């Protein structure tokens, strides 16, 4: 065992207590390591939240696509998925959603949609592209379509 001694006066020495020195060094090591580990935990939490938002966006896009493919009406599809009152919050071609993809004015997820119509001799092929974005970055996009014949079809 190593002992440290302080010379107090001539001929007299006093041993230094290493326990407190070790404690201080250990606490310093613990604080630095703890900071790193906490950052890792925070990163994992943010990644898990983003994954949850992506899952909800996928389900929401799928619901809108299924509702749109029946009659090619994007307004009707949004009403079916979000409810008529909530769909009215659509600002032109954008909608603000929360993390669970419900309409919310203070949400962080933005749903934007654009429709493209191709005319055929016997009807219209309507396609709509749905884009979900968080903080300006695109999270998920999906394109769905519906063929609306002139004269109609007998359905499925």
């Amino acid at each position, binding site marked *: *065992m190593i*002992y440290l*001694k302080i010379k107090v006066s001539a001929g007299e*020495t*006093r*041993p*230094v*207590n*290493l*326990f407190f020195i*070790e*404690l201080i*060094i*250990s*606490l310093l*090591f*613990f604080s630095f*390591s*703890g900071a790193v*580990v906490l950052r*890792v*935990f925070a*990163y*994992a*939490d943010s*990644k*898990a939240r*983003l*994954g949850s938002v*992506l*899952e909800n*966006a*996928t389900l929401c*896009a*799928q619901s809108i*696509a299924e509702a749109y*493919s029946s009659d090619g009406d994007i307004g009707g599809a949004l009403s079916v998925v979000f409810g008529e009152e909530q769909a009215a919050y659509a600002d032109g071609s954008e909608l603000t959603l929360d993390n669970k993809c419900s309409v919310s004015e203070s949400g962080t997820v933005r749903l934007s949609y654009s429709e493209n119509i*191709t005319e*055929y*001799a*016997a*009807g219209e*092929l309507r*396609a709509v592209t749905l884009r979900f974005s968080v903080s300006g970055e695109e999270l*998920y*996009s*999906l*394109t*769905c*379509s*519906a*063929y609306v*014949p002139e*004269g*109609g*079809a*007998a*359905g*499925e």
Partner: protein
Amino acid sequence: MSKKNGVRPGGAGIGYVSVIIIFAMVCLAVFAVMSIRAAQSGDGLNRRAGEYTAQYYEAENKANELLAKLDECAYNSFGSDFFADSFIESAAGTDGVTLTEESGSVKAVISAQIDERQSIEMTVMFFGEPSLHGGARFEVLGRRSVTVTGESGDSLNIWNGSDLPQ
């Protein structure tokens, strides 16, 4: 502990605090790594599910595009004497479409690839006499996802409940 020159070496045991601190940090580090791995695997799964959904609707878009072209052929064929022959002739060159005549009407099977293992099949009946079907030119009979079978094609022998061989 030994006494030397009348002075007792001081201090409690050295090393216990370090061992405990190091053990705690190792445990926290392991938990952090496990949480990162769980978040990454969940994120990967969600991305794959989202990609498959997008691919499915891409295939459905192609199928709807083919349906539009076939409806155009049917629309142009109504003026001819033999609807089925005229329709099949005008739609013959369309890829991904199989046409069969059924009592003056034409059944079309539209196929579009989702990925290398699955495809979507839409079965549509084009009527030779729309007036008999409320003015509708066609009816979508159904849609389904079909798995592309492999080349081996050998099926397993499944026990059908008969007596066991002795």
